[in-house]
């Protein structure tokens, strides 16, 4: 019995000894060129075989998505305008002060910067069609300046509006009826100073804007690892796509869907009748 145990233990010890010897020989023995190149691949390629390949598939597809958004949305708006037409409200009655002077200045600064950002950003994606070269290089510089401008304007705008932009209980029903924009009849919709759509656009433009600023800054400076920059570029492009879509909706709403909406951001007043239908809760809130 004792002999068998010692024998078993001895065998185990021998097996361990062989394993250690093999390990030592493996470490000190020569590498095959294949081993060497595999080791180099780990250092040089890093996560390219996985994340890099995904990037290769994703990055060129954004051009197509942007083209779809920029062409399809205006077509949809045109159809909507033909079918449902604009909402008209009497501009004869009492006018209610709606946007302060400082707010309007900030809004238009942000708007101007956004337009610059949009066009200069698209010029990078559509560089080939613009002839590329120094024109797009200059526009990339414009993109940087406009980015700082937008950030500077959106930050105080966020502080002014964030309270009124918090989600309310009736926002869901606004979304379910799509703000009453899918019908010709005039009916009060559940909305406070800002409706649910405006709120969504606000949060996307401010919080999304900060994400755009952060990722964009790193993409401009190129001071992060390549794998981080790949993720940043995809985030930057995807958010830009969402912002572009919402911007086009915003533009259509203010220019065509609601008559005179554009003017209220210039002079700061909204006609009482428009508020009664589109922002009825604003009257309840501000009533003494």
């Amino acid at each position, binding site marked *: 019995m004792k002999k068998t145990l010692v024998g078993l233990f001895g065998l185990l010890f021998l097996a361990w000894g062989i394993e250690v010897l093999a390990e030592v*020989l493996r470490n000190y023995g020569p590498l095959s060129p294949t081993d060497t190149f595999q*080791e180099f691949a780990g250092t*040089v390629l890093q996560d390219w075989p996985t994340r890099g390949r995904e990037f290769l598939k994703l990055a060129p597809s954004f051009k197509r998505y942007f083209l779809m958004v920029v062409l399809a949305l205006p077509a949809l708006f045109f159809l909507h305008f033909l079918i449902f037409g604009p909402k008209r409200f009497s501009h004869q009655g009492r006018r209610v002060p709606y946007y302060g002077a400082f707010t309007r200045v900030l809004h238009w600064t942000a708007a101007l910067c956004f337009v610059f950002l949009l066009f200069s950003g698209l010029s*990078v994606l559509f560089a*080939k069609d613009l002839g*590329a*070269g120094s024109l797009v290089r200059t526009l990339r510089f414009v993109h940087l300046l406009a980015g700082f401008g937008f950030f500077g304007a959106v930050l105080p705008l966020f502080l002014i509006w964030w309270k009124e932009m918090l989600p309310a209980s009736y926002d869901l029903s606004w979304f379910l009826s799509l703000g009453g924009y899918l019908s010709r009849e005039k009916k009060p919709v559940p909305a406070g100073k800002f409706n649910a759509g405006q709120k969504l656009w606000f949060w996307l433009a401010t919080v999304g804007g900060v994400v755009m600023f952060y990722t964009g800054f790193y993409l*401009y400076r190129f001071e992060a690892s390549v794998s981080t920059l790949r993720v940043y570029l995809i985030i930057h492009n995807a958010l830009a796509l969402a912002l572009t879509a919402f911007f086009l909706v915003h533009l259509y709403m203010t220019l065509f869907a609601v008559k005179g909406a554009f003017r209220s951001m210039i002079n700061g007043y909204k006609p009482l009748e428009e508020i009664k239908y589109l922002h009825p809760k604003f009257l309840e809130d501000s009533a003494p």
Partner: protein
Amino acid sequence: MAPGPFGPGGKEGSMGLMKFICDTERCIACNGCVVACKEGNHVPVGINRRRVITINEGQPGERSISISCMHCSDPPCMAVCPAEAIYKRDDGIVLVNKDLCIGCGYCLLACPFGAPQFPKAGPFGARGVMDKCTFCAGGPAPTFSEKEKRLYGQNRIAEGKVPLCAGMCATKALLAGDAEVISKIYAERVAKRGSGLSPKIF
């Protein structure tokens, strides 16, 4: 006719594919290729078209490799470039047109080898146009013109010479030329070297 370093000469349309091979058993990490490329092509300060990477430094199994643009058969940089500034010559050399490049950096994010380089050229640390290994074949500017030399460096291929880095490599670890020819040289070396160990232990 014996094949020269750039494929079987004299025959039209028989041009091979230009490739680099770095023999890691020979590379001694002297960085001579990096310096030769930088000096010979007047590469701007702060960027290197070629770099030497060492693994297991100071340990058994230390190996080094010299890496630049590998002139891929299906270049990922070319696939993502929104300006279509990157193109591939018939002989497989991948080049960038600096007049078209917008410096967006997509190519660097797509490249597995980190080959594209961007000099800090503009205000606020803005990137200039992309610069990378040209296989010493100049660029799209007229061959041997002042512009080609200024933007892209030497055009040694047009002169019938090998790229500077491979030409000056002291141990001849870095091979450049027709893929068929240099892979044959490398295969012969590997076969002659063997594993370095006489009969297998296990």
